[in-house]
């Protein structure tokens, strides 16, 4: 997990994103601004000395937004920030999901428009690649498309919020029943029902464009078209699908939204989108877009495809005979000076016991310092040779 996190953060740094550390404990009211009701319920809450409510962070975009509007208030926009850390959520549902999950994310704050959207989506794709995933794909949608459809319906507001709730639950059976009760049946109604199927390459934009007759949806389609073209320039045409049926929190996201999927994993590995209203709530109105990667799921994907990162191996296990401790400590120090990973034993051992000890550590080489300063050198599974310490260091540093 650590290796995956490092790989993703390194990719983010290559895109010029600055690493920030945010608190794990936040004011509940502040955190709640960026969360759906369901997510708010799942936060672990506790009360502060003065009776105000605090919560452990269930995601890290809000803390980053607070940072950008607070401590980094004077930093010029756009800000490119990235973060990594645990997020904690309680899960009262039927599954006992892990309560502590790990996320790495990035936020581009203070840049609006398709170029910024495309940058973040392209970076998300490259991050999944940097994590070692193959065969991932990114689905790009737009929250305005659905909002436009909804605005266009001639329905009382309570029906509209009912439709939103049904869509948020992905209940298309309920949605169909609800729309059947409405007096009007237009192409836009049909579009709402075909929501999850509106997915593909650039041609679906044209097809959808013929069916919608409201400015907001049209604008969403135009933006998606621009982002799609830009992603082609990033070399990601194959990886990206347009998905007008993407369903995310409709009140939070204000523009292009996206999700990354792996092969044979039941939920998205990465999620993100544009949220232009959040920063304003902390007193520094700014356009913003970003995403996060679910590290635990990425790890699961890597394990399933047999590409789990190897555990880092020890280069040398340094054992010693009764008289060799001082030399062993010096040998360990020299090896580390050359950038190798070395462990020096805590007790004297005979040659056979030392071999077993080194094998248990998984070290590539066993070096046993003997009386008289000679070093017995045995590569894992290899033949034992006796050489002076300097020669052993030189050979190991030389890569043998």
């Amino acid at each position, binding site marked *: 997990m650590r290796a995956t996190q490092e790989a993703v953060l390194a990719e983010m740094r290559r895109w010029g994103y600055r690493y920030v550390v945010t608190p794990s404990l936040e004011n509940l009211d502040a955190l709640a601004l960026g969360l759906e009701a369901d997510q708010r319920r799942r936060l672990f809450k506790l009360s502060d000395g003065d009776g105000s409510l605090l919560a452990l962070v269930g995601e890290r975009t809000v803390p980053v937004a607070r940072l950008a509007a607070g401590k980094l208030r004077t930093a010029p926009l756009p800000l490119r920030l990235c973060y990594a850390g645990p997020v904690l959520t309680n899960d009262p*549902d039927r*599954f006992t999901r892990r309560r502590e999950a790990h996320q790495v994310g990035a936020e581009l704050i203070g840049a609006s428009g398709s170029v910024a959207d495309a940058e973040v989506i392209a970076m998300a794709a490259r991050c999944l690649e940097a994590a070692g995933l193959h065969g991932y*794909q990114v689905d790009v949608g737009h929250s305005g498309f659905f909002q436009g459809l909804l605005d266009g319906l001639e329905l009382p507001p309570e029906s509209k919020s009912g439709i939103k709730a049904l869509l948020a639950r*992905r209940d298309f*059976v309920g949605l169909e029943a609800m729309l059947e009760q409405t007096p009007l049946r237009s192409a836009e109604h049909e579009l709402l029902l075909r929501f999850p*199927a509106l997915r593909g390459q650039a041609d679906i934009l044209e097809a959808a464009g013929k069916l919608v007759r409201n400015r907001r949806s049209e604008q969403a389609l135009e933006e998606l078209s621009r982002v799609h073209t830009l992603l082609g320039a990033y070399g990601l045409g194959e990886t990206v699908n347009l*998905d007008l049926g993407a369903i995310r929190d409709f009140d939070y996201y204000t523009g292009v939204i996206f*999700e990354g999927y792996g092969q044979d*994993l*039941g939920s998205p590995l990465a999620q993100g989108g544009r949220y232009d209203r959040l920063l304003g709530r902390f007193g520094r109105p700014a356009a913003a877009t970003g995403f996060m990667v679910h590290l635990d799921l990425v790890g699961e994907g890597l394990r399933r495809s047999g590409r789990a990162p190897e555990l880092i191996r020890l280069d040398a296990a340094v054992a010693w005979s009764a008289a060799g401790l001082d030399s062993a400590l010096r040998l360990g120090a020299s090896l580390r000076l050359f950038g190798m990973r070395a462990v020096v034993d805590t007790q004297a051992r005979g040659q056979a016991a030392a071999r077993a000890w080194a094998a248990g550590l998984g070290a590539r080489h066993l070096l046993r310092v003997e009386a008289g300063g000679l070093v017995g050198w045995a590569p894992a599974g290899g033949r034992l040779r006796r050489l002076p310490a300097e020669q052993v260091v030189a050979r190991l540093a030389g890569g043998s």
Partner: protein
Amino acid sequence: MISIAIPTGVLLQGSLDLLRRSGVVELDREEIGRKLLVEKDGLRVVLVRPADVAAYVDYGSADLGVVGKDQLWESPGPHYELVDLCFGGCVLVLAAPEASPLDDPETWPPAMRVATKYPRATAAFMERMGQTVEMVRLHGSVELAPQLGLVDAIVDLTASGRTLRENRLRVVAEVGHSTARLIANQASLKTRTEALQELVTRLRAHVS
């Protein structure tokens, strides 16, 4: 390969009929009952308990699932509920002993004690009605509970109403209507769009 989870119990025959009618796969009830997992005609069919279908689909171990709406009330998740398959119809009802004074909502006590296997659906209904409720979660023979004075009423599923009558219970209110539904994993819809859409379209076309 696309996989579909179908439930044991009352919805099994209807699920197999639908798969056969739509020309997707022809499966013998005994065969699937014995093997639990059958791969045929490019489709993997798994037989699981009704309450477990949503779990298989939500985690992506099955791309599609056939499941009663009554189970979905209790298992909300990230799956897509795509098609009303229109079989296995039944009603979730609030029922009380024939001699009970419970009738219109005005006659309900300030706090009602209710036994049920459906705590989520019951809680949502009572909240809609503004009724304070104390829930006793039972796992079987819910009809017995009011007769023994454990609760004022029960919330349970009924198809014909016979079990209720046999236990001298009558319907006080309808909580919800249930039929079999076709559900899909959220990621499968994105990563296997074409194969899945084709299958869903075929099943939808053969809903009777």
